[in-house]
């Protein structure tokens, strides 16, 4: 990426060209080749291991539907607000029109936007889930991500229940301009309504969670979990490196670093995520 001056600081917006998990190590490898140890897997092999490299433990990205399948009790997931789609208020056009990007993303992922929300149960504990999908426009947050997330909060709040969010996002969706930024206070407010109603947000940070999502709901969990090696930062590492002209620590912004600096309650390997969430749902549920 060409030089970005301090004044041209990117802040919450998507940096997904750089933080795409498949490209994180110099990039370009096959999505089923482990960027850490080089092992290659068939897709069903990886799926069987929850997309964690059986050889070295590297956590591959997980798409939204697969994430839900990993966590939810079979047959309990019902998508909600699946009919919502983004409008194009700015008639945004870069190399191609925004509407075209949206259509392509939907075709490529089968999702209406970068988040999948719905009602489900985990080990018998009813809850809502909101799982982001990085493969839909870099998991960027526009009006639909904000709206689906807010509605998930509101539905969870109705019975003082729980919402599990699994974030994976490059930041706010540039193509919706200032309206994308407004999804920050919108989702922050929705978490507030949920928590005021006695409900609970369990925030799971998957790789990568950067920009606007980090600066809104993903940081407001009653409990915050992170997957091993997941990058979670407000500014992306390249912007930080360019702005500060300092060498970044090797684990800059990674889950393990954020745990050490006091921002994360636990780094949870994917194989333990379901059990951990279930335990938390039981603990938080016992007060009601």
């Amino acid at each position: 990426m060409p030089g970005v001056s301090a004044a041209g600081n990117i802040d919450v917006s998507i940096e997904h060209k750089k933080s795409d998990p498949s490209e994180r190590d110099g990039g370009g490898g096959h999505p089923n080749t482990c960027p850490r140890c080089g092992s290659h897997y068939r897709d069903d092999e990886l799926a069987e291991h929850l997309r964690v490299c059986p050889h070295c433990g590297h956590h591959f990205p997980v798409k939204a539907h697969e994430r839900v399948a990993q966590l939810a009790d079979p047959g309990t997931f019902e998508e909600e607000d699946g009919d919502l789609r983004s409008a194009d208020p700015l008639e945004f056009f870069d190399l191609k029109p925004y509407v075209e990007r949206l259509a392509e993303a939907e075709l490529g992922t089968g999702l209406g936007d970068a988040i999948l929300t719905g009602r489900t149960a985990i080990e018998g504990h009813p809850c809502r889930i909101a799982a982001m999908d990085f493969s839909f426009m870099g998991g960027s947050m526009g009006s639909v991500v904000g709206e689906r997330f807010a509605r998930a909060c509101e539905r969870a709040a109705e019975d003082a229940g729980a919402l599990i969010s699994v974030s994976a996002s490059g930041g706010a969706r540039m193509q919706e301009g200032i309206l994308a930024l407004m999804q920050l206070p919108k989702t922050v407010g929705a978490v507030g309504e949920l928590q005021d109603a006695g409900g609970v947000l369990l925030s799971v940070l998957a790789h990568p969670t950067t920009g606007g999502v980090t600066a809104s709901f993903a940081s407001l969990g009653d409990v915050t979990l992170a997957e091993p090696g997941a990058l979670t930062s407000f500014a992306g590492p390249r912007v930080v490196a360019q702005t500060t002209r300092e060498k970044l620590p090797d684990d800059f912004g990674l889950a393990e670093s954020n745990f050490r600096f006091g921002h994360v309650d636990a780094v949870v390997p994917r194989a333990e995520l379901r059990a951990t969430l279930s335990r938390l749902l039981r603990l938080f549920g016992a007060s009601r």
Partner: protein
Amino acid sequence: MSQEAELGLRDRLAQLSGVKLLRGTKLSAELERLQRQLERLRQDTTDEEIWRSVELARHEKRPYTLDYVERMLDDWFELHGDRARMDDHAVVAGIGSLGGRTIALVGHQKGRDLKERATRNFGMAYPEGYRKAMRTMELAGRHGFPLVTLVDTPGAYPGIAAEQHGQGGAIARSQAAMLRLEVPTVAVVIGEGGSGGAIAIAVADRVLMQEHAIYSVISPEGCASILWRDAAQAKKAASAFKPDAAHCLELGVIDGIVPEPEGGAQIDHDAAAVLLREALVAHLDELAAVAADELRRRRRAKFRAMGVLAHV
């Protein structure tokens, strides 16, 4: 400008015209301002005008937060520090007197000369700056002081320590704090309203922009770098995402535009301060009539409704 927004303004004009002129000149100034706003908004903002705002919003002579504080407030006591780790000079906070009313004020602060620019970190706050802001919000809430925020930042500082100290979480919590407040709040973008660093202190009952301020999810250079891998395409990017006040008003993201002296606020700081002060007082007067919990309810509802949606 959308027909609906125009209708809204016209409504307000009509309403004002019909009202008994109890406050005399004040009300006619309000009328005049709205009329002018209406005129300007009737034509679409051109790409040139958008870029002109980008330039003026960043103009090195543009008045900064403390320039306004000095001119608008009758008294001012600056609060320092986050009570934990540092006093971030990119954010100023304090209490002061505006038209006989004690207010709390929080604003980004850029530096005028080289040395001050460094001290103020170009108006780019660390999480500690937002924690100072939150402390001030808490104080405002407890004492019933209306909160005024002045937004003027390229963005939150993208630094190593800033990340390690929880930049994202601080911005999220600052927004949550503003949404919880039960006092009137007015935010004004007085220069650059840069992304998360801006919204952290801009979740207010009334969000205004000065005529030549910009408010955006990403800087034009950042946007251009991502889209065309060329920061020099900034102007093109700005035209694409439209960070100018008129477009923000049209999108329903802000509630009004504060006029600047002809040619921009940098030309006449005093006059710019008079206009800003007038707008603040008018909005605070209106908000003072609303019950505390109702303020909060409306504020939450306003931000809850932000965005444009379609359906399958």
